[in-house]
């Protein structure tokens, strides 16, 4: 589809939002680093070299080495790719399933709505990480298991946001006009209702991304993520804890990686919300 003038206007507004632009830069740097640096860095993230363990920064090891002598920068870069993949899969899966369930719930209404929304309420009654821990413990520590666990935790919020939005659009004049034209309900849902819910969905998507990354880091910190020696940020942070007084580099850098990534996505998400939601805009002016 073409870029509509409305979209152009939103992009311009986004560009003027300084915090959002910081988010864009952080996220871009992160993505570029995880994609490009593996080609440049000479080290294998999992190759141990115990003689060079726990070193500080040097020309060879820019951020030093961990307790097994592995290059910290290399591990952070490879860990970034794990984090981003988990973030992407989880966000995508919860987006699809959440939008589907939320749209069904809001558009069909009645018993369908009651059943779906009570199911979502039940999922939301558990603290997110606790539920994920239980699920990963059940499925085992593979990428698929982590993604499934975090997705199940992520669906309810999407479903709620989409349902609320669909309920609102369903009563709009253009939906009535579409019905008066003789459009079928499914066509109206796809053409007239959902495209107009894109704002809240987009915001929820950008906010889900850092939550998913944080979730994966949390799981691996607790030892439930990908098994060693996979360079996951959460696990690196946990392993570095024991050596924090002697060699704080590993802990600082993996912590910083998590922090910067999550902050980047959050700033971007907040910026998008400011741009897409007219109410927050008027409050700022």
């Amino acid at each position, binding site marked *: 589809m073409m870029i*509509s003038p409305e979209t152009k206007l939103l992009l311009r507004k986004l560009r003027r939002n300084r915090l959002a632009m910081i988010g864009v830069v952080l996220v871009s740097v992160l993505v570029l680093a995880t994609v490009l640096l593996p080609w440049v860095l000479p080290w294998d993230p999992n190759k141990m070299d115990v003689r060079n363990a726990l070193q500080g920064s040097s020309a060879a090891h820019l951020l030093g080495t961990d307790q097994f002598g592995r290059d910290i920068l290399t591990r952070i870069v490879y860990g970034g790719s794990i984090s981003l993949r988990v973030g992407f899969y989880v966000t995508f899966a919860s987006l699809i399933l959440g939008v589907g369930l939320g749209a069904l719930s809001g558009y069909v209404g009645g018993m369908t709505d009651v059943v779906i929304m009570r199911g979502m309420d039940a999922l939301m009654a558990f603290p997110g990480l606790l539920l994920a821990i239980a699920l990963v413990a059940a499925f085992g520590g593979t990428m698929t298991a982590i993604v499934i666990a975090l997705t199940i935790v992520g669906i309810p919020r999407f479903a709620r946001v989409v349902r609320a939005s669909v309920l609102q659009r369903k009563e709009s004049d253009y939906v009535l006009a579409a019905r008066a*034209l003789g*459009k079928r309900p499914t066509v109206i849902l796809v053409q007239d209702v959902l495209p*107009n819910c894109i704002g809240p969905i987009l915001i929820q998507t950008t906010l889900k991304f850092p939550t998913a990354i944080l979730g994966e880091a949390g799981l691996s910190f607790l030892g439930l993520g990908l098994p060693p020696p996979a360079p996951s940020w959460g696990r690196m942070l946990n392993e570095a804890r024991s050596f924090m007084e002697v060699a704080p580099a590993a802990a600082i850098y993996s912590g910083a990686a998590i922090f910067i990534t999550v902050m980047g996505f959050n700033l971007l998400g907040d910026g998008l919300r400011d741009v897409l939601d007219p109410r927050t805009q008027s409050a700022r002016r």
Partner: protein
Amino acid sequence: MNTAAEIELPENDTAVLTVRDLVVRYDMDEASIHAVNGVTFDLAPRETYAIVGESGCGKSTVALSLLGLTPIVGGEIVLDSARLTEMGRAEMARVRGHKIAMIFQEPMTSLNPVLTVGYQLIEAIRLHTSMGKRAAREHAAKMLGRVGMSDAERRLRQYPHELSGGMRQRVMIAMALSCNPAVLVADEPTTALDVTVQAQILALIDQLREEFGTAVVLITHDIGVVAETANRIAVMYAGRIVEEAPTAALFADPRHPYTRGLLASVPRVDRVPDGQPMPTMEGSAPSMRQLPEGCPFRARCSHSTEKCETDPPVRVGEGRMVRCWLYE
């Protein structure tokens, strides 16, 4: 509630649309809203039939009912000898926008903001015809021309927010007429527009009614709007038609006390009273949740007697109808 099978309008074989004893009720959580309580009328081909009344009298509900978009609980609607009130959902969807189409009050919000005008227009055409994309696009451009929009090709690529209210209403009209319906229902089509644009849109609807041979049901609260375009006028009050007459006759000789009150409260340039307040009707319309027994207008009527506590009779003659005890 008496749903009045008493109305004996002259049976009209040529009527394109026949509505008999239409009853519509919205069931809410605690109460039911009796929006339409026995509406009967015929629509002749190429005719403009206006339904006027104040907010909440049920006129918009009548409009939506004609397209089967309300919970109809009684009566029947016959369009071109097809009984709409007995149709299933899928069958009704094929009639909507095809045999009977509608335009709405708010052109600003009646178009989907994320799709181009062309996409929406082509979609409307392809819903009810077997036209291919290209043919539908040509037809869409032609329709825009017929509703008086120049530069149709560019308009097709524009989004609704790039058009003014009057332009959007033209697009709505083009969409409604694109499948050449037998009946066009216009629900307050000019209320949201500037006065100058109002006249243009009304003239356009009238011109297209002629060209397409469509009959028009014009719903409005503005009796001035109907004076020029309508052949016949029905005055609605509390979910019923209280008076129906040819336009000229209604203005010359309003019979129902409500119609008289309505006409008296229209401000007119040629009789500005010096320093006198504009005439208004006392009181307000009864709640549609709980309508009183008998004539619903009696609390505001200066002619009311104890007779009015029972349902008023319907008097038909001279091509007009009035529902009032005064003419018994």
